[in-house]
């Protein structure tokens, strides 16, 4: 009998080209490299300076998401870029992709979208893969049992040139989430609870594995949301073992094996789960039954609390500073948080399940006077599907804006932003000072909570708008 292995160890070992030593990192093979316009230009320039070509264009896929406008082009086809520089950045990726023979999901592609939404959607992301991208929320792909992590632009260059990275093996932590979620509690609430429990750096140096009945019961979209936010606790990556739900979700998608080959692959994917007796450097347990709809109250994603408990009183100087920035004294009910903007979208919550959850609350209701609600699908596929289901009509009738896919207000570098002093409830991943625009104040929450807050005009527990089945 060989030593029991964790999911992380199994995937890691299969990708070692050269073992690490005291004085050198491991050479880790990368199965899938996702590229976008913001963190790649300098990497392509580096290749050019060295006279190199992208080594594995077949494993490299590019999309436009961060800098692109989410408003339609005018009659002449001109897109409303926020600056000429943003347009140049998009054109630079288009040129680099053409020059290196990369598949780019550009404006005319039916698959264009936020990099972490389209990877799984097309089946580019497959269990047991190593996935990297110059974006910290690459951890999203861990929901499929991938080792997936964000890298810097130098490393984007390394992968373009060699399809490998020099990497040290992280420590492992298993997070067991026991029990069952209460009605009205979602994957986002689980994620915000996990990072609240670990703290902003509690995961630093670790690969996380999420496990337990709550994780098993989550749908794939919910699992992606949980893994997506791993970086907000400082973790290198987050992973969930592939199960039958994973297999059925991916079946028939464009880039997965088809027919009998799929079932063969799936049988191997199901073997990836952590062995009984696998050991972790750290293991923690969270009672999933106690998780409630969450919202952040501060300026770091770990500064969140159950909505029903109100805004907490500051426990230290950092929290005091965060409350001051947010305009709270601490101890007030969340109803005092008058909402100016609601943003539903991003790699965290821009998928079909997220839009359905938001639409279920907005249906037949109106966005409160004075609230701007912006709904941004995570991909073209999500946009088309949502429109087939009539979700866009629900949003438009409620008084919300329905946009083209992109990162939009999550990172606020495309012209979609929150004005100074305004309070936004956002389904995105970061509430840092000024993240959604200089002086903006952000409350992170689930799509249901964001939709409820849009209707109520203040931060609101979504359960008041839900017809919950009695337990």
């Amino acid at each position, binding site marked *: 009998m060989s030593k029991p292995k964790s999911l992380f160890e199994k995937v890691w070992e*299969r990708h070692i*080209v*050269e073992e690490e030593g*005291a*004085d*050198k*990192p491991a*050479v880790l*093979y990368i*199965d899938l490299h996702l590229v976008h316009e*913001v*963190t790649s*230009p*300098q990497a392509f320039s*580096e290749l050019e*300076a060295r006279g*190199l070509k992208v080594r*594995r264009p077949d494993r490299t896929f590019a999309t436009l998401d*961060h*800098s692109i406008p989410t408003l339609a082009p005018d009659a002449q086809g001109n897109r409303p870029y*926020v600056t000429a*520089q*943003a347009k*140049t*950045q998009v054109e630079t990726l288009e040129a680099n992709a053409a020059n290196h023979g990369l598949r780019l999901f550009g404006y005319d592609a039916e698959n264009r979208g936020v990099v972490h939404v389209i990877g799984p959607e097309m089946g580019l992301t497959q269990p047991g893969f190593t996935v990297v991208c*110059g*974006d*910290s929320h690459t951890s999203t792909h861990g929901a499929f049992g991938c080792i997936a992590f*964000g*890298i*810097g*632009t*130098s*490393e984007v*260059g*390394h992968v373009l040139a*060699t399809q*490998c*990275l*020099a990497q*040290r093996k992280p420590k492992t932590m298993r997070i067991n989430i026991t029990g069952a979620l209460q009605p009205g509690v979602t994957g986002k609430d689980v994620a915000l609870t996990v990072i609240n429990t670990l703290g*902003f*750096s509690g995961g*630093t*140096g670790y690969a996380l594995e999420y496990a337990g009945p709550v994780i098993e019961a989550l749908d794939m979209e919910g699992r992606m949301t949980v893994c997506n936010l791993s*970086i907000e606790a*400082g973790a*290198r990556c987050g992973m969930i073992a592939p199960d039958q739900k994973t297999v059925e979700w991916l079946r028939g998608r464009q880039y997965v094996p088809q027919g009998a080959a799929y079932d063969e692959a799936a049988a191997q994917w199901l073997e990836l789960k952590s062995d009984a007796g696998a050991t972790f450097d750290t293991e923690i347990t969270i009672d999933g039954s106690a998780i409630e709809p969450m919202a952040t109250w501060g*300026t770091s994603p770990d500064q969140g609390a159950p909505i029903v408990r109100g805004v907490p009183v500051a426990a230290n100087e*950092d929290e005091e*500073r965060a409350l001051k920035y947010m305009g709270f004294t601490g101890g007030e009910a969340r109803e005092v948080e008058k909402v100016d903007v609601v943003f539903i979208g991003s790699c965290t919550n821009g998928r079909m399940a997220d839009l359905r959850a938001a639409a279920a609350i907005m249906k037949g209701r109106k966005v409160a006077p004075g609230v701007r609600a912006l709904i941004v699908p995570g991909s073209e596929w999500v946009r088309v599907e949502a429109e087939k289901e009539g979700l866009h009509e629900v949003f438009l009738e409620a008084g919300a804006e329905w946009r083209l896919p992109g990162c939009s207000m999550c990172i*606020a*570098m495309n012209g979609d932003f929150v004005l*100074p002093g305004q309070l936004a409830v956002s389904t995105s991943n*970061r509430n*840092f*000072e*000024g*993240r959604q625009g*200089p002086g903006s104040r952000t409350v992170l929450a689930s799509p249901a909570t964001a939709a409820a807050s849009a209707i109520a005009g203040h931060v609101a527990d979504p359960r008041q708008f839900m017809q919950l089945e009695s337990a």
Partner: protein
Amino acid sequence: MSNQEPNHSFSSRIVVLPEANIDTDQIIPARFLTTTTKAGLGKVAFNDWRYNADGSNKPHILNEIDASEHRVLVAGNNLGCGSSREHAPWALMDYGFKAVISTEIADIFKSNSLKNGLLPVVVSPDIHDKLTQNPQQRVTIDLESCTLTLEDGTAVTFQVEAFARQCLLEGVDAMGWLLKRLPEIEAYEQANNKAA
């Protein structure tokens, strides 16, 4: 190549930004990431801390010092969390910093910094207190011995990942190091059905 300059041993005054959790959105806000080069980002380093909306200066220490005299940034716990943007170390280096010190430095930011020759130095809370309580002091940082020496003579060692240290000291280029492994990479691909 990154714009590395010899960084093995130097002494400098420090700048203390005591805030914890300085994320990369603070170091360089996202709206400045539409650049396609690395050059000139120092002027927007900590942009929203340094400038008003109309571009005029806020009263901030980074607007008041001679950057060439202050090559070491001392920050609060958990420096560089958030976005993977390498623009953050590019901006700090372009401003003039050669090292950053904190009690904890986020993973991707640390890796990005080392690849550009910006030295991330993690110190104990005690040493951190000695730095923040005397923000006028000069420190010496020696990469060869991985030692930080404070003005009062206190000397402590700090950890730098061995390969990253070797790259900086010997001018080893990480991409070149990987490129030398192409035969092994190809063999791996053949053995694992990953050939093109």
